[in-house]
């Protein structure tokens, strides 16, 4: 609980009361689902980008593989949330093991490109394999069951599923970041050679961070079809990975909370702007450019600018 912090408890408690807000429609609950899910993914990516200093351009593959794991099981009649998440962990874990083993041997732009190309292989495979529906993906999935008799068939139940997942993932990340492991990750970000000279097996730490980030993203992917009832190859497209990175940047690198806000902000912005104008990508691109130019520390950096000029937010 100490790592979690009382403010986080309050925020999650408030989020838990969201379905009780009068006038809360099915549409807004599902939007909240998407916002929190996207926030959770951005937070997992922040573990890699903000704390370890590795920019992954392939997180969409972890996300998409998780979604396909659920979709494939559901198509075959398995509806248990636990089975789907377990299968997703297995599939994403195996794939992430390969990717992180090779990618973490390289730094900087090469890491980004290796993750990108591995993800493109997965995308191309699912996009053209008719067993998994080709470009249409797997559609028309049933509702998932949490326990026998408890079917996640209403927006409220789905919302609580993602909220519990976000709280769990946030707790894991917080504990990790505060632990010795997390400190070593920051040391690697700041100066990889020095961390190595101190005797740390740098690649093993980087692989660890990569695996945890991938698995958390994979679980988010596994949850997504339980709300959308489909899994398509577009979930794995590299532009999707780009959107995860955007969310992290919008929120604030290396803060965990920032990317959650960034992901939610991005999802709501996309939804709201797209219901008014159909050129919403111009707005999103513009927001991104403005953020990079004028507020490189993201939305959370803004808060610090106004409050007190204390040291660095991250680590």
């Amino acid at each position, binding site marked *: 609980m100490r790592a979690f912090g009382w403010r986080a408890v309050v925020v999650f408690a408030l989020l838990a009361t969201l379905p009780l807000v009068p006038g809360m429609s099915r549409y807004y609950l599902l939007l909240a689902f998407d916002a929190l899910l996207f926030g959770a993914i951005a937070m997992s990516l922040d573990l890699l980008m903000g704390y370890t200093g590795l920019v992954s351009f392939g997180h969409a593959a972890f996300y998409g593989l998780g979604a396909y794991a659920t979709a494939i099981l559901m198509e075959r009649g398995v509806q248990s949330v636990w089975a789907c998440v377990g299968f997703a962990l297995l599939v994403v874990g195996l794939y992430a093991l390969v990717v992180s083993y090779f990618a973490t041997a390289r730094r900087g732009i090469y890491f980004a490109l290796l993750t990108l190309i591995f993800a493109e292989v997965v995308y191309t495979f699912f996009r*053209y394999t008719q067993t998994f529906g080709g470009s249409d993906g797997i559609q028309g999935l049933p509702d998932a069951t949490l326990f026998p008799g408890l079917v996640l068939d209403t927006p409220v139940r789905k919302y609580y599923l993602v909220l519990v997942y976000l709280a769990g993932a946030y707790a894991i990340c917080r504990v990790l970041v505060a632990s010795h492991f997390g400190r070593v990750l920051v040391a690697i970000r700041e100066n990889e050679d020095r961390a190595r000279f101190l005797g740390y097996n740098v690649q093993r730490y980087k692989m660890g961070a990569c695996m945890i980030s991938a698995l958390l993203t994979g679980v988010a992917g596994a949850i997504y079809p339980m709300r959308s009832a489909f899994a398509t190859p577009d979930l794995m497209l590299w532009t999707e990975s780009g959107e995860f990175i955007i969310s992290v940047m919008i929120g604030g690198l290396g803060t965990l909370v920032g990317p959650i806000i960034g992901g939610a902000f991005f999802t709501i912005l996309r939804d709201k702007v797209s219901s008014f104008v159909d050129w919403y990508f*111009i707005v999103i691109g513009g927001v991104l450019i403005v953020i*990079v130019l004028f507020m490189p520390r993201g939305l959370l950096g803004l808060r610090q600018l106004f409050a007190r000029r204390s040291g660095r937010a991250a680590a």
Partner: protein
Amino acid sequence: MPYSTDLVDYVLTVLLPQLLHGLVFGAALGLLALGLTVIFGLLGVMNFAHGELYMLGAYAGIVVIGVTHSFWVALIAAPILVGVVGAVTEMTTLRPIYNREPLYGLILTFGLALVFREGARQIWGGDMRRILPPFTGSTPLLGMTYPNYRLFLLAASSVILLALWLFFTRTRAGIVVRAAVQDAEMLDGLGVDVRRVFTLTFAASGALAALAGLLLAPVFTVYPQMGVEMILLAFIVVILGGMGSMGGSVAAAFVIGITQSLFSLWMNPQRVAIAIFGIMIVVLIVRPRGFAGREGVLE
């Protein structure tokens, strides 16, 4: 001997045209990758908006052809127009962040790409368009016939690549750009206006991408997403050639162009894509600096 005539037949009617296809595509890909690798050398940024400049080149071509009814005027005007767009973009968005980490440049260009792509869709619509080749017909060549426009494409791209090589090795301006790729700070210390070099290089790289886009337009189709598909291939070429290495990029462009078209003889497009990604992964693991990159740079 029926076997050997079969073989000759196969080489002449299947292998050779496909090889030529690969050369043509490789040459155009070289134009695209060259700008990308120079920008990478200068700014340390993989320009995600490069594919969109390529796309804008094709659309600018459509506009100019619509006004003047001449492909040749478009071939001059479209790269200039896109070059101006590039220069303005560089001055307003990239210049302020030169001193920051490369990550910011990556994300900024990703945002620019979104704006350009959606802007094109708003202005010209989302449907596929075609540019008619300025001339038709085909030429008998080594026992086969080959479309004239593709031969022109190969010749034009090769001439431009050659001209660029002369520019980089024989002119003062070219040497200044290469010096900036090596060490911009030192160049600044020597009294060269580095900011102007950056802007002009970015504009020229955009113009080259536009030229590639317009030259390839009669062979492919024009649509707002066309840059997204090409940019990944261009990235692969740049890595394979060695980031920041111009000669390496051109060589890699031909290798990828030919590999892709030869592989597609024996595999479906999906397997070709995966095979090329596979080659790329192996290169990144075994020799990340590519053909001609400097050892240790950004590894």
